């Protein structure tokens, strides 16, 4: 029966091409939209994901990590008194203006971390070093934003928040979900760049939990000690930030809807072509039934045709999606294509094509084998 399915599929090459175009279109749409969604998930909270903090202390009711407001640095001493708190490092994340070579202003987010700690530091350094931030008025920029920020080389002096800033390092792939790039610097430098903040201020405390304690335990204790502030585990801050940027702004929902639309379009297109192919072959299925084939054998042919279409269509789709994904990596909206998504999409393609065959199977079930005697 597999031979019949295979030969039927390739016998009408025009129909095969139409079917494959439908499947490829749907799968590419799903892969790209879902890839964008995953990328949004990653980008929206990467500064939290890579923070290496166990807990965050913030001013109350922040909507997301990029929405923190200053609080007194003196709270640090209270935090350090809580059993299980090994470190409490100050961390600044603030929106500041960056002056472009043209004189125009671009908003950036300055991320200031303690150089003596290991929390809140930049990652994927590809040029320069974090140690260079010990010098006054120095910053690290992501190379993706070089053009946007008018940065061309290490050592270049720019203007941020009305102060000079020398670029001493480049990272790779640290994107911001907003259009404002992250600019990493030391906590001390960040204070200078953040208007209205003094040495007695911070925006967050990154908490490192001591061995033998769990973040949940320490969170409860900290909350009792600092009831006027909010305490989040890193996962909670991650979730809060992602939920805000990806879902509450509608950006993620739009991409998810795109993926779902791709799935619906795919099912409709594939259902239509497989149904048309079944109707075209209805006399052959009737003949098979007259010859003694059970309904199961007929389903086998239809489902095998659907599965073969799915696998062939998927092969083209994943190749296209791979090239699109690779091409997008240097831009602001990279499309993620992890192996799990690639594998899951193959199963989805087979499921989609099998689902699209249901109407055809219903049609085949109702074939009257006596039709074979009608001229």
């Amino acid at each position, binding site marked *: 029966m597999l031979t019949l399915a295979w030969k039927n599929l390739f016998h009408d090459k025009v129909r095969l091409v139409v079917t494959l175009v439908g499947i490829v279109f749907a799968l590419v749409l799903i892969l790209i939209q879902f890839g964008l969604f995953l990328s949004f998930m990653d980008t929206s909270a990467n500064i939290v994901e890579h923070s290496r903090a166990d807990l965050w202390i913030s001013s109350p009711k922040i909507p997301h990590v990029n929405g923190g407001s200053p609080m007194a640095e003196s709270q640090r001493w209270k935090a350090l008194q809580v059993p299980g708190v090994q470190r409490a490092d100050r961390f600044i994340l603030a929106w500041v203006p960056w002056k472009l070579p043209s004189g125009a202003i671009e908003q950036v987010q300055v991320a200031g971390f303690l150089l003596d700690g290991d929390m809140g530091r930049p990652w994927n350094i590809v040029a320069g070093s974090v140690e260079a931030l010990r010098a006054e008025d120095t910053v690290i920029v992501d190379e993706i934003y070089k053009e946007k920020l008018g940065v061309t080389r290490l050592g270049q002096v720019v203007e941020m928040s009305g102060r000079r800033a020398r670029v001493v390092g480049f990272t790779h792939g640290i994107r911001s979900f907003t259009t404002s790039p992250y600019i990493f610097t030391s906590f001390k430098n960040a204070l200078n760049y953040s208007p209205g903040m003094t040495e007695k201020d911070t925006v967050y405390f990154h908490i490192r939990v001591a061995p033998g304690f769990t973040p949940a335990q320490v969170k409860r204790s900290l909350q009792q000690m600092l009831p006027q502030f909010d305490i989040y585990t890193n996962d909670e801050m991650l979730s809060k930030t992602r939920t805000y940027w990806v879902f509450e702004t509608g950006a993620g929902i739009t991409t998810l809807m795109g993926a779902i639309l791709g799935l619906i379009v795919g099912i409709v297109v594939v259902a239509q072509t497989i149904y048309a192919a079944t109707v075209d072959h209805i006399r052959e299925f009737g003949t098979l039934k007259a010859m003694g*084939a059970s309904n199961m054998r007929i389903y086998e042919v239809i489902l095998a045709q659907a599965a073969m279409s799915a696998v062939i269509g998927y092969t083209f789709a994943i190749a296209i999606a791979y090239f699109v994904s690779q091409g997008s990596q240097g831009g602001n909206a990279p499309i993620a294509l992890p192996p799990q998504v690639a594998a899951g999409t193959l199963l989805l393609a087979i499921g989609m094509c099998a689902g699209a065959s249901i109407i055809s199977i219903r049609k085949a079930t109702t074939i009257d084998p006596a039709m074979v005697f009608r001229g």
Partner: protein
Amino acid sequence: MIEIRNLVKTYGKGSAAVHALNGVDFDVAAGEVVMLMGPSGSGKTTLLSAMGCILQATSGSIQIDGREIVGLPESKLPRIRLEHFGFIFQGFNLFPALTARENVELSLKLKGVSSSQCRRRATELLEQVGLGDKLKTHPADLSGGQKQRIAIARALAGDPPIILADEPTAALDSHSGQTVMELLTALARQRQRAVVVVTHDNRVLHYADRTVHIADGRIANHFEEGRTAA
């Protein structure tokens, strides 16, 4: 081999009911070639469909090798068709995507025969019907007579005791029609197969052991070797 008694097939209900078969009694023996004739709508194809387990009769009895098939559940019929019948259709009903040999192999594969045996048996059958040189040819590249010979090879592939043919020569020229009928009669004589042929083609009547006329869903009369039997 086939015994049909008081067979009734009714379409529709009440005043709209149409009696396609109305009390048919009919037997076919092994080694016999029977022609079923009658005007359009007389019920001959319905009778062929009912005896081939393709159509469920409304009432009456059909026994195939002593086994009653009227009233059997739908799910049992494919297996009976597979084991007892080979079908030949007016329109050939070959699979256009398959080669001549693959068309014949398909019938064997339905019976669960291994691929190598399918190939060997299909090749033998196509050689027997004179198409040994067309094994890899698709139906679209063959003449009507050649297509019908593939259909005969396919019908014979599973070695069924009964061959049911619906207008097998209708789409063929005279010479091809004669070839097809010679193959079918040889099959009946040499292999003791029962062959039932629905036909309008008077040119092939002389191949019949018996000709049965059907009209208005009833057997009108039988002719055996040129004389009226009933």
